[in-house]
């Protein structure tokens, strides 16, 4: 038997030799993005929020679809379902679920910030004058579908194109049978600093949108009923910089 001499160097992510992703920050070049707010039921919304997050009324859900033209994780698309909340009076979007078509994006999102991503099929593209987006998991089982038509181009102040930043409930299971998981409430960068200041900002339009959310037992995207769809926002181009998150609250000792 031979005792090893440690030649081992830790990476930021698994596997220890040649980690799957590097440390933040990550620079994203946006292809297109569609943000569709909708009014929803306050009771259904409250049932989904962890302690400390408060529902911002009127209750409003947010669907965000984005196609990244370039990123450290390649070209990929994502769809997210969120809910407008407040944390100590700061307005944020609590992300309930997400589907992306890049597995590295699944890993980095879940492991670093707790963005609850799963792997699936996401498409955002044009059919004539209609912007058509959908998300499926597994392929063929559609949980989200949106159509939109652009209306007016906006002159948005730089840095305010996207709206509130995201907040996530990160839950890393304990390696022990009865051990406590590590549970953190984490927010990403302030959105005002998210748009990369050195690059050209995105073009922004208002849009009329029609939104359908469906559900399966594994992916209940209909968990927030759609009462009425609000005017949507479409962004094209621009860059965003995603940095480390900020831990708002550590629930680990409260379990």
């Amino acid at each position, binding site marked *: *038997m*031979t005792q*090893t001499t*440690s*030649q*081992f160097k*830790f*990476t*930021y992510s*698994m*596997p*220890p*030799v*040649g*980690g*799957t992703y590097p*440390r933040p920050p990550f620079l994203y070049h946006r292809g297109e993005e569609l943000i569709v707010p909708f009014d929803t039921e*306050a009771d259904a919304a*409250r*049932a*989904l*929020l*962890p*302690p400390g997050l*408060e*529902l911002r*009324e009127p209750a409003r859900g947010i669907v965000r679809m984005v196609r990244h033209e370039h990123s450290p994780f390649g070209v990929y698309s994502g769809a997210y379902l969120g809910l407008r*909340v*407040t944390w100590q009076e700061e307005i944020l979007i609590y992300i*309930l*679920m997400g589907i992306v078509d890049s*597995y590295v994006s699944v*890993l980095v999102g*879940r*492991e*670093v*910030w*707790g963005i*609850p991503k799963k*792997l699936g099929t996401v498409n955002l593209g044009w059919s004539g004058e209609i912007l058509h987006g959908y998300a499926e998991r597994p392929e063929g089982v559609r949980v989200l579908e949106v159509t939109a038509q652009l209306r007016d181009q906006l002159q948005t102040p730089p840095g305010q194109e996207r709206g509130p930043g995201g907040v996530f*409930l*990160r*839950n*890393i*299971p*304990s*390696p*022990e*049978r009865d*051990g406590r*998981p590590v549970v*953190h409430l*984490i927010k990403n960068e302030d959105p005002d600093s998210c748009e990369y200041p050195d690059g050209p900002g995105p073009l922004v339009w208002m849009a009329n949108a029609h939104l359908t959310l469906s559900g399966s037992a*594994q992916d*209940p995207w209909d968990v927030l009923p759609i009462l009425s769809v609000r005017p949507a926002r479409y962004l094209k181009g621009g860059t965003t910089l995603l940095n*480390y998150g*900020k*831990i708002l609250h550590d*629930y680990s000792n409260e*379990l």
Partner: protein
Amino acid sequence: MADQGRLTLDRLPYSMPPTSPLYPPPPIMCRDVESIMINFETDRDSAVSLLPTPLELADPPTGTLGILYIPYGAIGTYYESLMTLNCLWKGEPHRYDICFLVTNDVSMAFGREALGAPKKLGNVGLQRSKEGVYGWAERPVGHRLLNMGVPLEERLPVEQAGMLFASSICLRIIPQPNGAEPTISADLIQIPVRRQVTELWRGSGSISFPEQSAVDDWSVLPVNRITDSFYSIGHVEILGPRLLQTLK
């Protein structure tokens, strides 16, 4: 106007997202698992450089390459390729899991988050043919990293299956979300597995690494000499993991 959330922590599921957890807690049962496993001798220096302290290298340095097909179970249907290194923890033999490719996100996230098994998504296959059973691993699709084959030459009593598997140890690395030091937490985790083998064969296995990759080095452990090769069918149950040590 604001109103407090009602998702109490006692209702928090084992994995994210809380509304629809990606994977359930162990034990995870996988039925009718088909696999080929090839054991080989490798280079001491290459092996040592992959092994975290305080694990010790087994002597002689040996590893295993394998490809599995999991037709159904609690984390879905998927294929998996694996590379492990035989090691010792406090004098007891284990296998240290170096890398995996799998074909579904549930297995990938469960492996990484709950066990520390360093899984990535890839294109993996296992097929029966007239020459035996062969498998492959690609990442990305079409970029062939590994070919393996085991001809079915000798049927063995299933009681001999114990020699196939030592209990596995993973190094789970979880990044700190805020960049604070230390920027990761690193835990050595033991993964007890219960196996029931229903079919066991031995053959003269072969391994090749057709293409290299900057990000997925499946030839990082040189195959100096193949010592044994098996094909098996059976049930695998992944039991609750156990924290061995938090590394500083």
